[in-house]
């Protein structure tokens, strides 16, 4: 039998505000235990929350960028449950009035565009962290407690005109697209490995064509895009295998076991959790005015997909190149500024994707901190275009610029890299090389055409790479012909 998978995705994202959701403690990752805590985020008796204005703005921005409808009247609710990482034993969250609802996110699937339906975007607070130690005990650290947290949940089934996630590829694509969007909005660093972005797919399968949903399982602890893909794929196959064997799927939470490359059971959900939601009496409602919502909307920068499409259209780039360039907003911006000032944006794109990215990666620093400017790429490309330096020299020059910040012209001069196009000096050199390699000359003349590369290499080496390769080829052909 053929099966279809139905995948819902719940993503939690920590916001990169300066301070926490409901108190003034600094938001950061890691650090010594309980060093970023106060009476509020540790639930000391008598403490009260107060809402971080910027956190609300960030979540509104995300909701708008995800094409959501906006709730103009927002309430916080208390979600009551006991767990040691939750100091008040309730989480302050949104319940029946999420700030955003009924939106969508565009993803690529097999060359087609899908609009993944989003059910809700809501505001809440993160929990503390537990560190399990020997003797079955755990240490509780509340540094993370109260970090602004945004929950984004897809809508399953999707309404008419929208799609759901249907396979592991799409699951990965969805979370990558989501991350890209949030990074563009500058509201989260979305580091999966640090847990600032956490993805929890819930998966069910059903016979192809059926419109009844199967029993779903939920996956937790997926700490990279790769694992989102692997685990989702594994879980779909596991469930199909179960059904084929005539077994029932059990509603449960499963985790990805990296060592064994499989999902394993974490806990079974017997009954619906009794969270006893009720409106948080310690906080007052948030009323968003239309002017405010529009003001926040106007602050949204050009998002990755429109940017990608513009690169394709305005700079005649292939779609795949445009995808690479828009992946990181600072890279996209770098290219955008370079492309605007050069004759051949395609050449600039190639240079940036190969030479620039290689140097940035080697440096281990983000592009913004590397000091290299679009003007530098322009200068190198122009030197190459005018024939002043050849491609090899250009790479050398660019690497030097990247390392020292010196101007291109100065490096060319200092290192004597100016390309030699003067026929007489190249001819002289060609004569020397041919004279020194009589055997190879004979073999070439006997038909071993590939030796042309050998002669070219010898000449270029002799001339320290400065010879114009076109001129060298022409002279060699003349002399050997």
């Amino acid at each position, binding site marked *: 039998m053929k099966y279809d998978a139905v995948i819902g995705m719940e993503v939690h994202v920590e916001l990169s505000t300066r301070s926490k959701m409901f108190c003034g403690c600094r938001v950061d990752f890691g650090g010594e235990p309980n060093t970023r805590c106060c009476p509020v985020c540790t639930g000391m008796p008598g403490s009260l929350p107060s809402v971080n204005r910027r956190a609300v703005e960030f979540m509104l921005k995300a909701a708008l960028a995800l094409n959501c409808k906006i709730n103009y009247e927002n309430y916080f609710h208390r979600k*009551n449950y006991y767990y040691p990482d939750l100091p008040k034993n309730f989480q302050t969250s949104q319940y029946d009035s999420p700030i955003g609802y009924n939106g969508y996110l565009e993803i690529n699937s097999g060359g087609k565009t899908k609009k993944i339906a989003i059910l809700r975007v809501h505001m809440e607070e993160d929990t503390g962290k537990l560190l399990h130690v020997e003797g079955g005990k755990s240490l509780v650290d509340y540094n993370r407690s109260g970090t602004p947290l945004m929950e984004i949940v897809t809508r399953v089934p999707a309404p008419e005109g929208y799609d759901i996630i249907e396979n592991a590829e799409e699951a990965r694509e969805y979370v990558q697209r989501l991350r890209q969007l949030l990074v563009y909005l500058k509201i989260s660093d979305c580091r999966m490995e640090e847990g600032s972005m956490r993805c929890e797919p819930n998966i069910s399968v059903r016979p192809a064509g059926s419109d009844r949903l199967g029993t779903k399982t939920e996956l937790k602890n997926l700490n990279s895009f790769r694992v989102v893909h692997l685990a989702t794929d594994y879980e779909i196959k596991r469930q199909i295998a179960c059904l084929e064997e005539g077994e029932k799927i059990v509603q449960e939470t499963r985790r990805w076991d990296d060592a064994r490359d499989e999902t394993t059971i974490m806990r079974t959900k017997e009954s619906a959790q009794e969270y*006893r939601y*009720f409106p948080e009496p310690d906080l007052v409602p948030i009323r968003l005015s239309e002017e405010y919502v529009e003001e926040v909307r106007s602050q949204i920068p050009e998002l990755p997909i429109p940017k990608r499409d513009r690169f394709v259209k305005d700079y005649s780039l292939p779609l795949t190149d445009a995808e690479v360039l828009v992946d990181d907003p600072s890279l996209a911006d770098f290219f955008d500024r370079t492309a605007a000032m050069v004759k051949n944006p395609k050449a600039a794109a190639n240079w940036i994707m190969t030479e620039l990215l290689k140097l940035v990666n080697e440096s281990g620093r983000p592009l913004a901190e590397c000091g290299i400017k679009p003007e530098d790429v322009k200068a190198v490309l122009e030197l190459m275009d005018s024939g002043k330096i050849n491609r090899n020299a250009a790479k050398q020059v660019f690497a030097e610029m990247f390392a020292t910040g010196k101007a291109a012209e100065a490096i060319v001069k200092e290192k004597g890299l100016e390309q030699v196009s003067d026929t007489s000096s190249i001819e002289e050199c060609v004569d020397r090389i041919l004279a020194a390699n009589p055997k190879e000359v004979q073999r070439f003349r006997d038909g071993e055409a590939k030796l042309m590369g050998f002669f070219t290499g010898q000449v270029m080496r002799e001339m320290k790479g400065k010879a114009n390769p076109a001129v060298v080829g022409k002279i060699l052909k003349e002399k050997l012909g």
Partner: protein
Amino acid sequence: MELYELTAHELAELIRTRKASAAEIARSFAGRIAEKEDAVKAYITVTEDKMLQAAEETDRLAAAGELLPPLAGVPCAVKDNMSTAGVRTTAASRILENYVPVYNATAVEKLEENLIPMTGKANLDEFAMGSSCENSAFFPTRNPWDLSRVPGGSSGGSAAAVAADECAFALGSDTGGSIRQPASFCGIVGVKPTYGRVSRYGLLAFASSLDQIGPMTKDVEDAALALNVICGRDVMDSTSLSAEAPDFTKALTTEIKGMKIAVPREFMEKGIAEDTKGAVLAAMKHYEELGAVVEYVSMPNVGYGLPVYYIIAPAECSSNLARYDGVKYGHRSPLSRDTFSMYKKSRTEGFGPEVKQRIMIGTYALSAGYYDAYYLKAQKVRTLVKNDFEKIFSEYDVIISPTAPDTAFGIGEQTDDPYTMKLADICTIPANLAGIPAMSLPCGFDGKGLPIGLQIMAPALGEEVMLRAAYAFEQTSDFRKKPAFPGGNK
């Protein structure tokens, strides 16, 4: 006349005119506490050293020529459900028996900023749940007017301390009458301000949407002075009001000619003791003599206040008290084998029966399937109660009623059934539901010589008209007396 017998404003005057030092005053109260505390048991923790140090500091600043705040050097008791840095804060519960906070409640911070020395932490019903102070996990407080009787509650320790001159004034908290009812039982003045007037930051929450801190004092002028200290917007409490707090002493005139006073029949009917009713009727007459217009009105929904309160308060409390779990502070059961047994055993051992029952009622009222029938319904009826008040206040300046249906009852008399809807709260609860200011002041004595309280309610932010009505009554009557309890002043 001993220093401890004076009102806060009299003591403040002595300090201002250098007729007494803050240290002398503090020593006078320390002596009084030593003398009376064994009988009254108003305090869970007495902070004598801290009080004396603070008083000496005040004297030093005075000697240096600093301009002192109005109540500088006037000792104040603090109900033991307000967080005090470095001073044990128990909420009269075993679960917090050894809890020493690292931060001050905003109200406590304001006392310190105003150089007001703290006498100690006053007893209460556990987590402010109760109306007799008998639900304290440690010991009951006794009514200075009759040591065999309760001082009322939950702010019973604060009320008894004021009545017994064991402090010049006190801070209490009021969720359903917890300031006004003990004030009434102990013959003092107690004010529950408008919800949000005083920051709740650092008040150990019982029912967040009803709780409010307020002063308990020997007279109305002291109440106005104390309100001046503790009111005001606080960024740490999102529900604290942005409205500027006025100088409440400016409202204290006896000129109330033409003031319109409403007396809801519903507050004068069921279960009101004859003596109490008589005292309130006399007060109505007194107001008329002062030139006020006094009329009976009807508030048809006010009677629903009781069931509404008994759903909303436990619901909020069930969530507010979830944090007492044995992880971060307070009692952890030695039987904690895993987190589950830690929660269950610590809470079962740590909470008293009344608290446990309220938590359970609240848990039930909030659970899926019952939320709409209980919590949501209660919140809707709360709107009706609020509307009743709005209607009355569109025509009247203040509402008066008895504070409590009867005077102080005997210790042990009403403890059989630890948790039933108490008619005793019927007059006080509606003000909490509506968020409006309300106060109690002495208006007479019953046949046993026990004080009777008159409740005055005003519209939201109407503390000034309420205080004026109270002041006019107080200044033209003679019900402010001292208890002549065994070993009393005389």
